[in-house]
């Protein structure tokens, strides 16, 4: 780049370097910039399709129009409120579902009796999808948050329960033997040997369940209730507000992405003892 083209401002950083810092920080968070190529291509295609009106604007508004709709929803409507409503439901379902899942998974993993006791019930309920429970639960609990928390919590519970159980069962015999020659008590054995060796499968299912919960909240809100991103999406469809519909979709995708990255970071931190951990 020629010297002439850069105008150095006397104070602070130039616009150029600030932009570069920004991009660098973004790169750190998103990984290799190669991952940004496809989204940009899609955006470009979208823009082209809108410009040449390949699709009726009612069905595919231009990106700029969607951006404006985002701004309007953010400032004039209650996008934040609906967003927080969804996050709160996901957060609660995730915490309850995973706590109970891990708890019962550990109990069943440590006691064959308890596993047998739960076996039939768990394996039957597991095969009824959470969404199939929703109508009944809404009849009982109404269309408010508790019904959704229960349904999504159930969908979080199962992967956690099954993976915790399986993780505990696959503890290596030689590690148990080591614990025996070191005279570890039952408690020490569980805390120092059995749980850590189940940790990788627990973490995998936590990450999976977090993504699942976020996807399900949209469905649950769409099927019942009067708030949340899922509700907004289906309302927008009904009113043919395609720009708002797309805003919701993008927000859901981006938030899902952030949730997954956060879970990955947590997983990498907790499993840092694993050789070549890559997720």
């Amino acid at each position: 780049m020629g010297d002439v083209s850069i105008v150095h401002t006397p104070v602070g950083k130039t616009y150029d370097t600030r932009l570069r810092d920004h991009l660098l920080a973004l790169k750190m968070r998103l990984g290799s910039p190669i991952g940004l190529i496809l989204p940009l291509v899609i955006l470009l295609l979208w823009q082209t399709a809108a410009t040449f009106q390949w699709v009726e604007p009612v069905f595919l508004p231009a990106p700029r129009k969607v951006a404006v709709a985002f701004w309007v929803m953010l400032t004039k409507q209650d996008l934040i409120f609906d967003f927080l409503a969804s996050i709160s439901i996901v957060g609660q379902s995730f915490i309850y579902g995973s706590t109970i899942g891990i708890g019962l998974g550990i109990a069943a993993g440590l006691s064959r009796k308890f596993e047998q006791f739960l076996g039939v019930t768990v394996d039957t309920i597991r095969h009824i999808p959470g969404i199939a429970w929703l109508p009944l639960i809404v009849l009982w609990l109404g269309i408010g948050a508790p019904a959704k928390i229960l349904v999504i919590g159930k969908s979080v519970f199962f992967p956690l329960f099954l993976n915790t159980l399986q993780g505990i069962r696959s503890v290596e015999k030689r590690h148990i033997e080591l614990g025996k020659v070191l005279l570890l008590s039952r408690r020490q054995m569980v805390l120092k040997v059995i749980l850590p060796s189940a940790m990788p499968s627990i973490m995998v299912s936590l990450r999976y369940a977090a993504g699942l919960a976020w996807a399900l909240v949209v469905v649950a809100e769409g099927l019942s209730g009067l708030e949340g991103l899922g509700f907004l999406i289906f309302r927008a469809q009904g009113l043919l507000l395609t720009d708002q519909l797309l805003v919701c979709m993008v927000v859901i995708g981006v938030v899902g992405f952030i949730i997954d990255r956060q879970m990955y970071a947590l997983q990498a931190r907790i499993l840092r003892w694993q050789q070549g951990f890559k997720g």
Partner: protein
Amino acid sequence: MSVAGKLEIKSVSKHYDVDQNRLQVLSGLSFDVHSGHFLSIVGASGCGKSTLLRLISGLDDDYEGDILLSGEHIYGPSLKRGIVFQDHRLLPWLTLEQNIGLSLENTGWSARAKKEAIRAQIELVGLSGFEKAYTHQLSGGMAQRAAIARALANKPEILLLDEPLGALDAITRIRLQEEMLRIWRVEGTTMILVTHDVDEAIFLSNEIVVMSSNPGRITKRFLVNLATPRDRASAEFIELKRQVLVELHLYRQQSKDAQENGIDMASLI
């Protein structure tokens, strides 16, 4: 320094039942290991060496005969009997110092005493600076040394070593043999070493027990009365090695050439 106890193995036999077939693994084994002595067991693969160590460690109580330590029947695992498994068996989720600390959990020592013991053991095996390293960050030799440190930390009366250096390259192995010798002198622990390496057995032990298989039994005992430090190239060393190899059926008196060959082959096993 730990109090070394005398180990007595009296007519010990052991069998497994495999698909209704009785597999006799050990048959009428008897030998003593005196306080503070270093005994090596050599023998073909599958002759029951690991099985014997499992019996002595107390991991397996299902055998005939008697095993006594300091005059008392052993019963179940005990902190008096440390074991180093053939795989190092460090727990991958614990750091080096946590792994060593695991063997101190039930010693009843104060936190300070534990910390000091961990530090001393890490220093003894030459791993200072790696206290916070996870297992995958250690080399094979370092992991083996860590496993030895873990087994020594709670001051067992007797240390059982199941081919602790088997998986290592020749150079690392010789270095660790010297290190084990030094540790044995410092700690004074009674040692029982299972090895495939006749050189290693002669270099380290007061006594060598040769076992043969089907069923596993003792065929010969050699007292090693060589001066220390032992010279692996000395005539006495090589002569004793020849005798042990003959006992293992790994050595045949042949032409000079073949003889050299025979020794080289055997030391590779």
